[in-house]
């Protein structure tokens, strides 16, 4: 069974290599914002390197192939694992606190542990010892190599929890905690290999987390509108179908917002200002629903949707007034004429409906509003 074990070890690494190459080839600027993508690219290329050195050092260790100076791969592997932890730390920082991530202090200090590890690995006998016949054996403090990555992960946990504590929005909180969950992969892999060194757990565990992050990034792009960065129609459909299924237990209110005479705005003021008005509506929506933890989306051209829990809203009309108020306010701030207005229709939903029916009903409500104005 020894023979099979070797093949399995190599096999799982090859699988991870293929998957990480697939992911790496799909990461481009359309998947996330620039810094996110930069750090993600950094981590994934390091993971690829790590897998390669891991396989090589495994093969050399079990003397399937002999190579003079093969110990160098072990050294590289050890250093790369710390670099991955470093990249992960920077990535989380970009996601959680972008301003902090771009300060020079963070940029330089956060790299110091990597250099320390490199020095310890290469110049001392603490982690790896070189015997006289060019073999590598574990040093006295072999387990020290898990400490520095562990410190990075501790830092990640601290920053994420700190950020999650500060924000009030529930969706942001959820996003932050999912970052923690993602960090679980590599750390659990490290814990297993702390006790049993020769199992291929670290790589698949790390890659599972990477895959999760990648999917989240992609989902973000699939579900957001390019212009306003609100949710788009696809996300709205997905969300409402789920929401309608449990409408009896958690009734909700859906608002449909339409910019009056948007076509005219586009024709007379130009598309640039038309886009600006849409962005202003999005901004007003964000501000209005700040304390309600609602779902806001751009549903199509100039139509927007807000979904709120019914129990959080005392009076449905209040939201409409707020919305109109903030819309005017932001128009004023952007030096646009305040003649523009919004038509807002709403519908309370307490029983299960078909999606198309719901859209139709709330649409009708909105048109009644519009007609009333004329």
């Amino acid at each position, binding site marked *: 069974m020894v023979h099979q074990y070797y*093949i399995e070890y190599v096999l799982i690494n090859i699988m991870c290599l293929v998957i990480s190459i697939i992911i790496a080839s799909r990461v481009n600027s359309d998947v996330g914002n620039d810094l996110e993508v930069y750090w993600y690219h950094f981590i994934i290329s390091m993971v690829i390197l790590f897998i390669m050195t891991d396989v090589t050092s495994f093969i050399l260790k079990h003397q399937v192939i002999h190579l003079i100076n093969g110990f160098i791969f072990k050294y590289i592997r050890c250093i790369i694992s710390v670099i991955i932890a470093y990249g992960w730390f920077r990535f989380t920082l970009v996601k959680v606190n972008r301003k902090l991530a771009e300060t020079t202090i963070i940029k330089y200090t956060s790299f110091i542990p990597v250099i320390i590890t490199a020095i310890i690995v290469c110049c001392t006998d603490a982690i790896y010892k070189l015997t006289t016949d060019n073999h590598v054996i574990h040093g006295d403090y072999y387990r020290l190599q898990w400490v520095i990555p562990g410190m990075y992960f501790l830092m990640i946990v601290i920053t994420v929890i700190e950020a999650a504590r500060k924000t009030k929005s529930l969706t942001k909180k959820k996003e932050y905690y999912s970052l923690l969950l993602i960090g679980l992969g590599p750390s659990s892999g490290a814990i297993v290999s702390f006790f049993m060194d020769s199992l291929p757990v670290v790589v698949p565990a790390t890659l599972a987390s990477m895959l999760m992050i990648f999917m989240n990034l992609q989902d973000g792009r699939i579900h957001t509108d390019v*212009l306003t960065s609100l949710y788009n129609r696809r996300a709205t459909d997905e969300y409402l179908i789920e929401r309608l299924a449990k409408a009896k237990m958690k009734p909700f209110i859906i608002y449909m917002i339409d910019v009056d005479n948007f076509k005219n705005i586009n024709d007379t003021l130009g598309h640039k200002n038309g886009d600006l008005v849409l962005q202003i509506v999005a901004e007003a929506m964000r501000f209005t629903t700040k304390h309600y933890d609602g779902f806001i989306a751009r549903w199509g051209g100039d139509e927007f949707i807000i979904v709120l829990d019914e129990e959080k809203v005392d009076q449905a009309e209040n939201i409409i007034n707020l919305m109109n108020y903030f819309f005017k306010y932001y128009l004023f701030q952007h030096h646009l004429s305040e003649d523009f207005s919004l038509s807002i229709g709403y519908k309370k939903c307490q029983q299960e409906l078909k999606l198309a029916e719901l859209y139709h009903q709330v649409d009708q409500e909105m048109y009644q509003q519009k007609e009333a104005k004329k």
Partner: protein
Amino acid sequence: MIHYILSYLIVDISCGLFALILLNHVGYDYGNTYSIRTFKLMLMFFIGYLVCDAVWVLSQFHYLPVILNRISVIGAMITICLFIYSCFIYGTIQMDLQYIGVFNFHFLTSFSYNVLFVFILTSVKTGWLFSFDEHGLVNFHYSFIIIFIVNCSYLLIISAKAAFRAYKAKNDDDRRTYLSLTSFMLIPVLSGYFYFKDQYLPIQPPIIICILTLIFTLRQDHRIYSDALTKLNNRRKLRKYCDERLEDAQYKPFYFCMIDIDDFKSINDTYGHHIGDEALKILSLALSQLSRNKHCFVARWGGDEFAIIIDKQFFTSPQHICEEIQQTFYKENTNPVLKDLTISLGTYYVNNNQLTLEELYKSSDHNMYIQKRAYHNKK
């Protein structure tokens, strides 16, 4: 020994973890539910297979009771067959959806699997495909290869078809989708080879999960660049494509066209949004037909506006293209409300690379309004 079993389990667990992650992100797409459901089924059967596989290795080495060994072997066989059948269905949906609706399609294609399941289940008594030795462990007979042959032939059909489609495909996106489907063939080729060399290697799960990840990421990629309602390219893709084209516009000049439905607002206002959506969907059908005929690129700009990038040699005249789109529209349209719908088209000739997408949009939009005014005057 213990290392072997633990590594085997790690392979199964990590593949299962990857599959669960994919399953969690499949999502929902309007009008595309069938392929999504099939993809979900694929992943679920695969996870089922992994569970059976893990139980098998544990019971094979007496960490679990022997009776589980029998159950898990049968379970693994059935789940892998179901998985491969759902791969077949998924491929068919991706390539030609029209067969799915055909009466008896499922009955006919699943026929050989039904026979196979009868064989597998009765083998417990009759011992055709496998039997149990004195320790209660499973012994495979030579006739066991029939399962392999059936699975192989289904995958061969689907990958051969995909390869043919990829060869004939006109644009890169389609070609990539079809090529990813041909990778199904890797499952039997690689795993069969290793399986006959050594039964105790977990070779199938890693190959399958690699292929599933490839297909899944391409699929998500497709969604990033496509519009949810009309399934055409969205503005993100347009920007990417347009930047590429603008770079060598001097050598390969093209026309940038904007299309707009006349009085779309009044359609929406008088008949409601769902009629408006229907109009957009039919128009997008007409546009994708145009893209096939004229080898051009079409995308939805937003609202009721669409953009076309068309090579100089395929461009005839604005009126001609406009009429062609409208003809297809009337042919596809079944709704009496939309029978008088007309569109406006503005074009701009691009032969230098000094412009940006926004400027192109502005210029062609301007040209479109000239035509629009003419339309309103006519009315």
